[in-house]
């Protein structure tokens, strides 16, 4: 409990609260029920998003893992970008070649 600071102005509520007594009786098996509720809350599985958030917070707090995480994602981005870029480029090249062939070969020309 916080001890009163002599520098603080006197709180008029303080003496009243110190004199206050709870006279009503606690319900039957109050303490047992409280412990039961605490145990039940502890036994309840943590929701997935909370577990994930906790795991992320704990894992990325470690510098080596944080660096590895960023490096892996960067490498994944580069690899995927390169792969998709090459696929797209090959398609564009094929389409452009076809366009030229159609422009010079009457037998392959689309109707103009």
């Amino acid at each position, binding site marked *: 409990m916080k001890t009163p600071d002599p520098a603080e102005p006197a709180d008029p509520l303080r003496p009243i609260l110190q004199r206050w007594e709870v006279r009503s009786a606690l319900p039957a098996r109050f303490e047992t029920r409280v412990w039961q509720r605490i145990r039940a809350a502890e036994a309840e599985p943590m929701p997935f998003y909370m577990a994930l958030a906790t795991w992320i917070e704990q894992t990325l707090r470690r510098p080596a893992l944080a660096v590895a995480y960023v490096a892996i994602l960067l490498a994944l981005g580069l690899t995927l970008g390169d792969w998709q870029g090459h696929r797209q480029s090959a398609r564009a090249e094929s389409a452009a070649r076809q366009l*030229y*062939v159609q*422009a*010079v070969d009457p037998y*392959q020309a689309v109707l103009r």
Partner: protein
Amino acid sequence: MEGMKRPWLILLAGLLAAVAGYAGFYLATTARGAAMRHGDATGLGWVKTEFGLSDAEFTRVCQLHAAYAPQCREMCRRIDRKNDEIQRLLGQSIRVTPAIEQALQEAARLRLECQTMMLKYFFEVSQTMPPDQGKRYLAEMEAQTLMTMPHTLTR
């Protein structure tokens, strides 16, 4: 508070690194394809990029193409007319008539004329290129045109 934010900032930094890496490599590798398509409905951009033409060489190729295009269009029209004639004759007969035979001979002559015209154009274009690229261009064009089996009756 700062300590709690740090893992989330690292998570975000990782995702940003992935997006930046993807975009960078994607744009770099598709730049060539974009150059081929650049404002081009004739595919000449492909010739310039594929065969590494200089601006002067490319200008000459464009001139040759501009001169060739009307001949090519006229050939297209003649092929279309001949195909229509053959389709009509085939629709009127159940055997090979002299008229059908003659139309097929004319179609074959037309194909010969067309292939000769194309070859002349290909040779002219190839001669505007450095010798190695010219050979590669000829080989590519022969493979794409003369060596294919065009569906003449389906045009």
